[in-house]
């Protein structure tokens, strides 16, 4: 090993990167943890003494309701994404290779474009005198326009619309790795389509499902602008609560505690994902 002096380039790069990450990722996260156990202070945001009041406030029925409702909408979003995405990823993995590249590209294009603008575009379609209602009425399927906007359903539709690619991509990658010979072996051993699906395909694609759930469930609790645009004031997400506490109500400890609960949920899901991957690794070997 050469000393740091002889490798000025390496040292400079490492100092720069570590400096950036420590200052703008590590320290800020510590601050949030710190803020969550402090006391609310209208003047300087937070003050001593140290207390667990913020976490206790999370259990206040008023907020607990918001959290559970947000969790419910996020879970529904995840479920709908899974129901649409699972067969989609399967079908996609069967398409000829060259066309697959194009189709995947078409799937990630919306991901890189402005999600706020796309949420607004959805509003154009769902509005009372919007395109969807007009189309349904002129087809004679409905008599009066449906009230689609400002409902729980609209929020879920919006979240599904924004997050569906995040469910499909990890599922697609596990379907790509699914070995045909395992499916044939299952058939040869006398298993029907259903038995093969339950005992072979589902367990082998489980890591993809968990990765997809992770990538959809968490953002689905944080994307505060979706309820703002589509949901009205009664269908709030955890993200709306956090934003409100930090920018309007100025209750930093509470906002920080809520965000830590989100982070812990993420850590738990990541752990479950790792576990399922390791199990399949052992069985597959």
């Amino acid at each position, binding site marked *: 090993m050469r000393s740091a002096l002889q490798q000025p380039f390496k040292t400079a790069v490492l100092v720069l990167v570590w400096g950036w990450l420590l200052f*703008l990722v590590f320290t800020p996260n510590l601050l949030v943890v710190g803020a969550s156990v402090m006391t609310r202070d209208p003047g300087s945001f937070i003050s001593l003494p140290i207390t667990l009041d913020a976490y206790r406030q999370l259990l206040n029925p008023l907020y607990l309701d918001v959290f559970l409702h947000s969790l419910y909408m996020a879970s529904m979003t995840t479920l709908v994404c899974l129901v649409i995405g699972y067969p989609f990823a399967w079908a996609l993995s069967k398409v000829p290779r060259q066309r697959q590249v194009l189709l995947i590209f*078409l799937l990630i294009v*919306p991901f890189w474009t402005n999600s706020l603008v796309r949420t607004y575009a959805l509003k154009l379609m769902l509005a009372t005198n919007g395109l969807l209602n007009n189309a349904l009425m002129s087809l004679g399927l409905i008599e009066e326009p449906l009230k689609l906007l400002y409902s729980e359903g609209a929020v879920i539709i919006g979240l599904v619309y924004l997050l569906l690619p995040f469910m499909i991509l990890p599922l697609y990658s596990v379907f790509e790795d699914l070995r045909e010979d395992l499916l044939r072996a299952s058939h040869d051993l006398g298993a029907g389509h259903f038995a093969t699906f339950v005992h072979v395909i589902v367990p082998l694609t489980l890591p993809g499902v968990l990765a997809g759930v992770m990538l959809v469930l968490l953002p689905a609790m944080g994307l505060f602008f979706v309820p703002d645009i589509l949901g009205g004031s009664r269908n709030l997400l955890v993200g709306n609560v956090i934003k409100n506490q930090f920018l309007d109500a100025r209750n930093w400890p509470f906002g920080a505690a809520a965000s830590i609960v989100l982070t812990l949920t993420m850590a738990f899901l990541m752990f479950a994902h790792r576990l399922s991957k390791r199990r399949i690794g052992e069985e597959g070997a």
Partner: protein
Amino acid sequence: MTRWLPRTYLTLVYLLLYAPIAVLVVFSFNDSRTGYEWGGLSWRWYESLFNNRAMVEAMWNSLWLALSAATISTLIGALTALALHRYRFRGKKALNGMLFVVMMSPEIVLAISLLALFLLVGLQLGYVSLLLAHVTFCLPFVVITVMARLSGFDERLPEAARDLGASDFTMTRTVLIPVIMPALLAGWLLGFTLSLDDVVVSTFVSGPSYEILPLRIYSMVRVGLKPEVNALGTLLLMFSMVMLIMSQWILTRSKQ
């Protein structure tokens, strides 16, 4: 049946994904003020957009922010990827882990943590705070893009350069950088679009002194439907799509 069913399904989902975008684009050329029925072709919303001074200023602010954030994150991200690829050092796993956490954690968590930091150190919220935040969330994407390029690259080239007496710095400049150039460009373009489209983080770390486009749109769409937003949204979507197609084109072409 087994052939047309999956195909129909794929087509249907793609139609649903793109329908709202198509509607937005079409309606941005709609002359009607109400925005629901078709009133003939018109450029008027684009005109009123560019005649709005505050709007044009926000546009320039956004472009400048995206430009600088993409450049800085590409610079730091490329150096990080090189270090991760070439060097053994203590805490390598921790570095990788931290980048992963930045990419995976919900944006709102990153947003409030940065807001807390900026207020603690007394940084005035505006261009600088936005820049620091945007570079931070673009960084992992650049690192991944460059790492992917480096992993498919012949290790003997830098060794040969070293054997011929090149220093680390010279070797990086003359061998590695030309190799990772396409990934740098792609990473820069991705960073640019990420920065241009961000709403969540910017909501927290921007101040009144520096207004950017996504936040202006956000305040406009919360109140209701506005035809100017259709035009603005169309411009933003098209811009991002062109950037993305360019970055992917550069990456695929360089592989051949």
